[in-house]
């Protein structure tokens, strides 16, 4: 395995993340709230509580707007919309670095966090697969001008697979889904997709369906 570095996780100056007066990053506070982390600080700190309350208000407002616009829509639609809005908020706070779209030199970009999310979702369309860390390395560079491979990235994706899966076949399917999504949904040139199987798990109830992206 080639030595790769993780995508940047620390907010860069152009990010919208901010430190609350208590010293905690807003994005971390929101993450902890969404994951229902058992953190005494979050319960006692007025700044963190206010930040969480703000996010909660946004969620309620989105739900309300959705209900106003389509009162007869199924409740699941509102939940999906709310989740997507929260995803956007989270990705704005921690966008990662820009990755090239299209041909080299087009000056078109997509932020790393957005691309990684789409690629993880693609992997999880394969039955029983759960995606973990998705690192995007590159672009690789070094090619002649106009060579699309010169602007291509390398994707390293960790996945959990069903315990009874035939791994080479499953890895190929995941790789194909990831490549297909990178090309057809994003338009990002990909030089290689490394699939790392980090665990094999028994699917609950024997379910074989992948998640909906």
């Amino acid at each position, binding site marked *: 395995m080639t030595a790769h*570095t993780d995508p940047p996780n620390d907010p860069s100056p152009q990010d*919208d993340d901010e430190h609350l007066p208590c010293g905690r990053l807003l994005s971390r506070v929101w993450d902890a709230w969404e994951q229902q982390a058992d953190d005494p600080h979050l319960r006692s700190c007025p700044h963190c509580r206010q930040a969480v309350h703000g996010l909660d208000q946004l969620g309620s407002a989105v739900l309300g707007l959705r209900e106003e616009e389509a009162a007869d829509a199924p409740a699941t639609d509102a939940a999906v919309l709310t989740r997507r809005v929260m995803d956007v908020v989270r990705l*704005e706070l921690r966008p990662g670095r820009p990755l*090239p779209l299209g041909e080299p030199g087009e000056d*078109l970009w997509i932020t790393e966090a957005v691309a990684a999310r*789409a690629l993880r979702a693609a992997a999880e369309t394969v039955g029983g697969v759960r995606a973990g860390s998705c690192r995007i390395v590159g672009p690789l560079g070094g090619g002649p001008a106009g060579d699309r491979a010169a602007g291509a990235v390398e994707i390293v994706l960790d996945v959990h697979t069903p315990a009874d899966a035939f791994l080479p076949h499953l890895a190929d399917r995941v790789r194909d889904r990831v490549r297909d999504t990178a090309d057809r949904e994003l338009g990002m040139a990909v030089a290689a997709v490394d699939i790392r199987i980090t665990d094999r798990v028994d699917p609950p109830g024997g379910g074989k369906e992948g998640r909906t992206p």
Partner: protein
Amino acid sequence: MTSDGPHVPHPARASSRIAPAAQAPAPAQASHASLVEAVARAVEDVPGVAFLKPGLAARLRSALSRPDPGTGRAPTSGVRLATGADGTGPWRVDVQVVALRRARSVDVARAVRATVERHLAARFPERPAPRVTVTVTGLV
């Protein structure tokens, strides 16, 4: 191997060269802001564009902590626009958008670029072609 940067420096990494609309020189501030606003509205009409950055996080924080009554318009700092010091060089435009998931991101970005180029060419036919950078910062 380290994470190499893109071949062409991304504008966010050289943001000192591009002044946001709010930081434009005072004498030209009104016209500059008007141009940014016009470009922003054109971009928002591009098929596949959901909205401009700044998006929800900034709106949430401003709504909760810094209410700004009387300004019903959406913020336009998702569009940055600059030109040479003498005001005659090519426009340098940086656009950040949240795109619709059902659209192909690169196609949306290309459409945004083409829209900005057409808009500026129509308003400033004497200027050289602008350099337009588009970044997709979210998918919904």
